[in-house]
């Protein structure tokens, strides 16, 4: 019992350090002169950052980008959830696939595949359509705000779907039926009953996608930057990564507004989801709604959903695989196929920086996720099982980093690491990753802990096992499913990590996503694609291996 009471404060210190220190350093940094002069108090950086004539355009583009992405993701999610829960469409397992698989494809590669398809000079689809219709100019330009919104919206679709689908399936259909019985038309019922009842879920989805796209770096940097469209994330990156002298003070000052906006939005989201309980009427009758018979619309609709899953899952991998074999981007034709070779693959596998990035990312993925999961186990245990007054503080702390935009927190960590020997080491990345992605480990583990009845532990104690043996023999084996999903989530996040890494990675500590970004900036699409496919392959292999190991361990 004495050990238990020491656990929570110790974890508060660790998690507090991980989540609070970058914020503190960010604030301190924003009020100082720069890395070299970390003393005195000056608002010079704020003045510089917020009198920048470009800033208003950046803020406007950021708003359009985030709101647009939220609209695209939420509307698509509403459509998919409605079709899934309320119609007799076949192949319903598709919907689960659509909502999970895109999470497995790294955002930067998804963005790159769209650039390869729709860039105005040599995008594959653009070229093909120009040839088909004899056009002089490309039909689409992905390097635009609509292009960014489309790609980000598709990427955030899983998040929106995971919020909206449960609300949709918990919806009490009798609310609609009584509206129809009162004489309202189907459309009136939809706008006056269905959508208002779902409003909390819709709002929650919109807010969460805004938070996600505000923090998004892959899409703005791969698609926005070539079109000279800057959002807050890429603006911050530009301040620290280009020009003669990176200005971390100004970056911190700009980052403060992204951080504050994000925290406010997450607070609003929490508020909404806690209120939604009394809003969304969950049918207590366990009643299955009558499914809408789609009749003739069934197969066209299925086609739309098939296309969507193709675009979300198959197309990116296919485009990358295709491009990796070619010397430059070209429309698939006889000539293209005759030019195919493994040259790009050979170059990547001989490129020392790519190999180093591969090694670093693998190490971060395997070792970092393991460390992250171990920390998550202790934190979840303290939150769910120990339940002292301090548990609440620990819980808030550990989900705090969820509301921090990656690049902003990267800048904060930079201010911290530059004062420590950790600067420019892989440990800096490791600490940053664990801090930023701790909620990904804690969520599956705390739900696993909730399922372990306290009697299971107590009976072990009475049987003669000490607290440590109880943890090892009872708690951990029962936690294995949670541990495995937490580890998979963390490892795949770490393996593809971009936003923190672009700030923290230095020569010698390159990681895969950063190396892919460099290739994109240099237009080395072939090598990029080869490295990207390797990245997807490793990521999938890790998922499969971890699931198999988890299965083997639970049987034992």
């Amino acid at each position, binding site marked *: 019992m004495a050990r238990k009471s020491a656990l929570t404060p110790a974890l508060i210190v660790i998690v507090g350090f991980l989540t609070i220190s970058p914020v503190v350093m960010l604030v301190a940094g924003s009020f100082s002169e720069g890395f070299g002069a970390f003393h005195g108090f000056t608002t010079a950086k704020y003045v510089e950052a917020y009198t920048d004539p470009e800033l208003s355009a950046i803020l406007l583009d950021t708003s359009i980008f985030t709101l647009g992405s939220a609209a695209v993701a939420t509307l698509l999610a509403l459509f998919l959830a409605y079709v899934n829960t309320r119609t007799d469409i076949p192949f319903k397992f598709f919907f689960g696939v659509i909502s999970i698989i895109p999470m497995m494809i790294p955002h930067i590669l998804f963005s790159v595949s769209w650039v390869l398809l729709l860039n105005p000079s040599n995008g594959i689809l653009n070229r093909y359509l120009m040839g088909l219709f004899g056009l002089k100019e490309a039909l689409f330009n992905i390097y635009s705000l609509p292009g960014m919104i489309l790609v980000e919206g598709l990427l955030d679709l899983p998040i929106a779907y995971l919020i909206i689908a449960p609300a949709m399936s918990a919806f009490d259909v009798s609310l609609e039926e009584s509206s129809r019985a009162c004489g309202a038309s189907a459309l009136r019922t939809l706008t006056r009953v269905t959508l208002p009842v779902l409003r909390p879920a819709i709002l929650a989805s919109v807010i969460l996608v805004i938070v996600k796209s505000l923090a998004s770096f892959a899409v703005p940097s791969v698609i926005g930057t070539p079109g000279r469209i800057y959002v807050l994330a890429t603006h911050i990156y530009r301040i620290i990564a280009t020009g003669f002298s990176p200005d971390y003070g100004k970056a911190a000052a700009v980052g403060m507004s992204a951080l504050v906006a994000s925290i406010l939005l997450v607070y609003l989201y929490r508020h909404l989801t806690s209120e939604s309980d009394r809003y969304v009427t969950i049918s207590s009758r366990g009643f299955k709604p009558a499914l809408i018979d789609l009749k003739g619309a069934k197969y066209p609709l299925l086609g739309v959903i098939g296309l969507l899953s193709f675009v979300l899952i198959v197309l990116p991998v296919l485009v990358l695989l295709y491009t990796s074999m070619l010397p430059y981007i070209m429309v698939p034709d006889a000539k293209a196929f005759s030019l195919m070779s493994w040259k790009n693959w050979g170059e990547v596998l001989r490129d020392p920086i790519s190999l180093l990035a591969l090694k670093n990312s693998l190490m971060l993925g395997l070792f970092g996720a393991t460390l992250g999961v171990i920390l998550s186990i202790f934190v979840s245990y303290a939150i769910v099982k120990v339940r002292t007054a301090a548990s609440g503080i620990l819980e808030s702390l550990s989900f705090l980093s969820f509301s921090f935009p990656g690049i902003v927190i990267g800048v904060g960590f930079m201010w911290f690491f530059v004062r420590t020997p950790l600067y420019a080491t892989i440990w800096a990345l490791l600490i940053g990753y664990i801090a930023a992605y701790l909620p990904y480990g804690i969520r599956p583990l705390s739900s696993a802990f909730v399922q372990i009845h306290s*009697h*299971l532990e*107590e009976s072990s104690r009475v049987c003669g096992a000490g607290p440590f043996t109880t943890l090892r023999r009872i708690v951990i084996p029962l936690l294995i499913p949670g541990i495995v999903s937490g580890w998979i989530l963390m490892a795949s996040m770490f393996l593809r990590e971009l936003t923190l890494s672009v700030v923290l990675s230095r020569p010698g500590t390159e990681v895969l996503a950063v190396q892919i970004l460099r290739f994109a900036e240099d237009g080395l699409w072939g090598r990029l694609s080869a490295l990207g496919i390797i990245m997807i392959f490793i990521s999938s292999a890790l998922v499969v291996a971890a699931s198999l190991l988890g299965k083997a361990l639970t049987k034992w």
Partner: protein
Amino acid sequence: MEIRIKGLTRDYFSEGKRIRALDNVDLTIPANRIFTLLGPSGCGKTTLLRCIVGLETPDAGEIAIGDEIVWSTEKRIFVPPEKRGLGMVFQTYAIWPHMTVFENVAYPLKCRNMPMEEIRTRVARFLEFVQLDGFENRPATKLSGGQQQRVALARALVAEPKVILFDEPLSNLDAKLREETRKELRRFLAGLNITAVYVTHDRVEALALSDLIAIMRAGRIVEVGDPKQIYFRSGDRFVADFIGRANLIKGKVAALDGSHAVIETDIGVIVGLNPRGIEPGTEAMLCVRPEFIKMAETGVAGGRNLFRGKIETLLFIGEAYEGEIRIGDTLITTTISPTVDVVEGGDIFLSFDTDHCFLLPA
């Protein structure tokens, strides 16, 4: 082994309010008996059990198991549960779902670093004892409720503890299985030289299983006694009412007559046992259980413990009628043979069994 509890106090905080779960409890649980803690929910019985096991820490007091003090606030002693050498069966059975039946039962022995050979023979012996031989390799989750309960019992017994504790072990079984398991448990425990502490809120379970019953209320022990003492001679009106259906009639002791006393009540003069020796002239309560009130043929006027009343309600429940009889302003509950010809609203004569009415302090 004997368990001695002195001055045990435990407070809870719920929504900012202090709730006293155990209030200065003194109790001695004698060795090698089945001892039941009985009481309504929230009376502190489970808290007391968990303090004995070491899963909860009291705020004050002392607990000794045999010669060893396992908790003392004053002497700053806390022996953790795993060092107390006890066995326990939980309300939820707490069978570990990731282990087989064998692994569940072997666990306490593995914790004691027993050689594998010996573990095998011991586990086999105890599985046979609870009639689960042949189930060794069954995953624990593939068992019925009753079987899980027996695995839990085998696991609690396998290390041959001197004390075994039960926290409402039958409350998750359905009614029929509960009756069977109750009998079985009594047989299992009777065959062992072991101190058993049993927590329940079910009075029938307590009466059927126990050598001794302690009745708890609001964090205190109200009365301790063997089942018959508690049922027939309780000295506390809460206990008398809780342990079985009871008619409690207020009155004043008029005279003594050997082991009996005459008490004047609202419905008339009643003669009953006076086990507590209540003096004449004092207020007292007379307790008579429905099964000791008989229907009399016709009123023998002036007969001893004979009353005339009116049947207010009559419920046919199969093996009997359950009747509420109004005598004056007092309602008396009684059971009437189902074959008798009675109707609601009819007159009836009741006779109270002199040797099964008893007086207790008001």
